[in-house]
Every structure is written in C-alpha cells, then in structure tokens.
C-alpha cells in the first residue's frame, strides 16, 4: 500500500481548471518535491492532502486522494482528524502572536490535550526535533514574533511536529529565508525523513535535487513527469521537463 495516492484528481476554482487528472503515488518515509512554474498548481495539489482547498468558495474536486489507503474526502473522515495526521508548513513563517511555548502547544490544546507535563514534554521534544531547542530554551515565554525569520520557520515546523503527524506538507518553506536558514531547513528535512512522509513545493532546483527522493514536475495543471529525483534531473523523459530544469522557461 502506498502512503499517499491521488487518482484522477481534477480541481476547479469556479470555472478555472487548476488540476487536470493527476495520478501519483508516494511511498512512506520519502521526500517528494513538487516543481514547476508559478501558477501551475503545485500549492493546489499540496493542499489537497490536508483539505485546505475546502476553505475556498467555489472549489470543486473530482477523483480521489488516499492516505494509508483511505479516501480522505469520504464522508466518514473528520477534517480536523485528518489535519492532525497531515501537518503543514507554509511559505512565509506564520507563527501566532503568542509565546514560543504556546505556538508549539497550540495544536495539542485545540485537540483537547490539557495535561501540563505532557504538553511540556511534547513541546520540548518537538523543538528538539526541529533543531530549535538550544536557541529558544531560555525564552519559551517570549513572543514568537521576536525570533528571526529562519527561527520562526523552524518554530512552525516544530508546531506541526507537536501533534505527531505522519505526513508533512511544505509549501516553499525556505523561499522567504536567507541561505543559512535555508540550509538548516534542508538539513532538518533530511533528518525528519526517517519518521515522516514529506511533500515539498520548491522553486529552487538545487534544493529539490538535494532533499528529495522523487520529484514531480507540474505544468499548467498537469502532472508532466513524476520519477526519481535522479532521473528527473539527469535524464527526463519529457522535453518540457528538460526545458524547465535547464531554465529555458518558467
């Protein structure tokens, strides 16, 4: 059984056809990079898996998306349960205007956990996993807004890890960061792979090459090519993929 699977997914924003018959399977504990020019549907595709697109008025989805073999759009699925299992990290760091501690504890609290020592332990563990613990352990009660951009993004990762998802969706998580912070995030993704299945949207070809096992190239709402990262970057089947990778468009 595949960890993640999409079968003939079509998505419309009103009358705009944003995803066209996407078929894709993703294995457990791998990193998949989604690449392609702006507006080709990468974020839309990513957001299918925690049903973030549901929030937008006028969205219509056809086909099926499976995680662990179960259709996440079926009636029995509770959307909040799903989002607990599928964490998400956004393009721009978006910590809440709360303390560092409360940011990480947020997902636990809204899911009904109130046991203080349990929360403390989990916060510490998540911050350690996100390689942020040493930098913030003395100022957990300080506002998250005081952290640097890179720290904020790792905080957002810790926040997602705290509710123990099995899948993590990352939408250009490093595009707003400086090279050093970017390197830290990439390192982190590599570490996290052993426990999580990760999908990452990126505009940075080198980054895709460095962190991912498989790569999917999207173009105008279509999945043009999906293969091992090595293959995509060295010997793509499709001419469009090759053009994009070599920087001839996009």
């Amino acid at each position, binding site marked *: 059984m595949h960890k993640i699977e999409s079968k003939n997914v079509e998505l419309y924003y009103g009358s705009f056809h944003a995803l066209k018959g996407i078929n894709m399977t993703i294995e457990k504990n791998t990193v998949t990079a989604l690449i392609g020019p702006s507006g080709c549907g990468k974020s839309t595709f990513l957001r299918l898996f925690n049903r973030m697109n549901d929030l937008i008025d006028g969205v219509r989805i056809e086909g099926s998306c499976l995680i662990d073999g179960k259709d996440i759009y079926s009636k029995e699925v509770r959307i909040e349960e799903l*989002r607990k299992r599928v964490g998400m990290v956004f393009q721009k760091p978006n910590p809440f205007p709360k303390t560092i501690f409360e940011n990480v504890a947020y997902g636990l609290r809204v899911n009904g956990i109130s046991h203080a020592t349990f929360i403390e332990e989990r916060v510490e563990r998540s911050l350690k996993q996100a390689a942020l613990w040493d930098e913030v352990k003395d100022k957990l009660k300080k506002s998250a807004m005081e952290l640097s951009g890179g720290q904020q993004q790792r905080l957002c990762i810790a926040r997602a890890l705290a509710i123990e998802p099995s899948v993590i969706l990352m939408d250009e998580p490093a595009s707003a960061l400086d090279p050093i912070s970017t390197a830290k995030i990439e390192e982190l993704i590599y570490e996290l792979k052993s426990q999580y299945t990760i999908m990452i949207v990126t505009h940075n070809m080198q980054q895709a090459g460095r962190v991912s096992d498989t790569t999917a190239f999207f173009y105008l709402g279509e999945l043009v090519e999906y293969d091992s990262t090595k293959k995509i970057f060295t010997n793509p089947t499709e001419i469009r993929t090759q053009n994009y990778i070599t920087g001839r468009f996009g």
Partner: protein
Amino acid sequence: MNDFVKKFIERIIEGALMISSTVTTLTVLLITIFLFKEGISLFNQSPLEGDNIITVSANNKVEHISSAQIKNIFDQKITHWDELGGKKDSIILFTFNDLSTYFSDDEIGANFELLPHKIDSLVSNTPGIIAVFSKKYLAPNFKGKIVQVENVSLTQFISGEEWFPTANPAVQLGVLPLILGTLWVSLIAIVIALPIGLATAIYLAEVANQKMRNIYKPIIELLAGIPSVVYGFFGLIVIVPMVQKTFNLPVGETALSGSILLAIMALPTIITVSEDAIRNTPRSMKEASLALGANRWQTIVRVTVPYSISGISAAAILGIGRAIGETMAVLMVTGNAAVMPHSLLQPVRTIPATIAAELGEAPKDGIHYKSLFALGCILFLITLVINLWVDYISRKRSNYSK
C-alpha cells in the same frame, strides 16, 4: 503667452486646493477657540442672578460665601452663621419677596424711593441678617457689609452635585450628575451592544457566505443612516412604554430606555469597525491554525479575535464615543432629570441632552449660556480623547501588521 496663462491658472487652482485642505484644521481650531472662550469665561463670573448683591451687618465676620452656601441658606439647611465661620447668631434671611412682611407700602414709597434707606437700617440693626437685593437699592453710604460671592470654580463645576442653572438668587452649576448620567447611559449601552455587535461582526467576517453578507451589509448601512430623531421617536413610543411595563415603573423614561436605544444606534459602528478588524487577520494565520487541526470556532477564539483585539477595542471605544455624543434620541427617552444616577430605572440627564434642552432658553452671554458652553467643552474634550485614542490604536495596529 498662452502657456503662461495656463500655468498661472494651474497655480491658482492648486492654491485653492491647498486652502480647502486647511478648512477642516481651521474648523477644529475655531470650534476649540469658540467653545473654550465662552466656556472658560464662566469661571470669572459671579453665580448671582442679575445685579443682585448680598449684604450682612457690618460686624459679621463672614467675608465670602459660595453659591452652594447661598442655596443652603435659602433651603434652610444652613441656619446659623457659625456654620459659615461667623458668630453663633441664627441667620435671618431677607429677600425682595419678603418686602411686604418687613415694610408697609407707605414706608418704602410709591416708587421704592425710600427702600434703600429702609434696607440700610434693617441690615445695620439686625446682627443675623443676610439681605439679598438689587444693587440699585443700595443706600449711598450703606452701613452694612457687602459679602463677596465666590466665582464659579472649576472644581465646584466638575464635582458639584446640583444642576440648577436658573436658581434664584444664586445658580447651582454642578455637572457631576450630568457627567455621570452620560457615562452611565453610554457604558450600559456598550455593554448591551458589544456582545451582539461582535457576534454579528464575527458572523459576517467568518461564518456567513458571500450571499448572506451581501444581504446583511446594506441593511446595517441603513441602520446607520436612520436619523437619531427617528430612533428617538421609536424609543419614545415603543421602548419607553415597554420598559415602564416590564419593570412596573411610574414612568418609562429612564436610563435603561436610553441605554437600549443607544445600544441599537451603536450597533452599526461596532459591527462595521470590528468586522474590518477581524477581516484584517492574515489568512496565513488562520490557515496555520486550521492546519493544526483546530476547527473554525477554535480558530476564531484562539487566533482571529486575539489578533484583531485592538481593532475590536477601537470599535468599542468608537461606539462609546458615539453614544456619549448622541443628543436627540437620548433627550427624547431618558426623562432628563438632573439627579445623581443611582439606578438604571431612574430618569437621568446627559450632557448633550442638557445643552439641547436648555440652550434655547438661556439668555445670550448669561451665566447659564456660558455654563452650557462649558458643558460643550467637556463633551468636546471627552470625544477628542476618544478620537486620539482610537487613532493611536489603529496606528499601532498598522505598524504591527507591516
């Protein structure tokens, strides 16, 4: 040449634009000057009506007397001179109305030509006397003593509990009941309106779909556009009797009626301003919360409302400001009794209502007229503080979201 004329005309128009933009600034300035010029002149004026003077016998030690003391003497709450720092004599009051009990018509003459002399001897022969009469009946070499009446002071004005601006012979200008009445009615109004308004704002910003919003928004705009006198009229014929019946009161014109009406009138402001604030919460913030498994309600409570709290408080403050300044509706339903407010079910009187009700009857440049301008100053200052406060909050907010 033609070009030169064109340029010249452009300059003139630009000058006109610039001048126009100073009009508002100038108006605010002029309002301040006019209000305070009239208002402040209240404080170097004697509270005595007309050209009255107050006299006592020559060996009375009392030199000054305040308008509150005069009133208490008239009301016989003060009956002995020692209460005013004088001797133990009891106070004997003589006013122009008592003329016939003291003197016969013959004694004062047909045209009061003998009156000054009569008063003079009365005052000098009666140790405990206090005589209030017009200056024109003061004898040329008066043997009594004229007591100085203290001018209205700012502290008396603000802290005085009695508002009798036409009392004779000395007006009572205590605005505390009016200030408290205004705050009382307005605060209760906001206490009623804030939860409802906030709920509606959240509903419109976060729960309702676009279609619902398109229905609600114009209706709320309309609610804001209805003239306050129409609200007052509605209050008078619907809310007042309702309050009267519900609480079994002798009259329905009470603080509560005013608060309910003001709450209705403050709703559009509160809804619009706080909806804007809520809508300004960054989408990414809400998405982050939802992506962590929070539902929409949790996101509203834990993220959206805390994030927009300054905007929401601006809405509440603005609502209070509107309520404090509201005139006609309040005038029509609160009963306008200038007493210290003790309960919601009593008539109260607010500052704007006082100005509206009394300015028409106050003789120009008289003490009553000036005191109403002083009330206007208080109102102006309160709303100015509120405006600056809201401005400060919204500026802080826009800095924060940058």
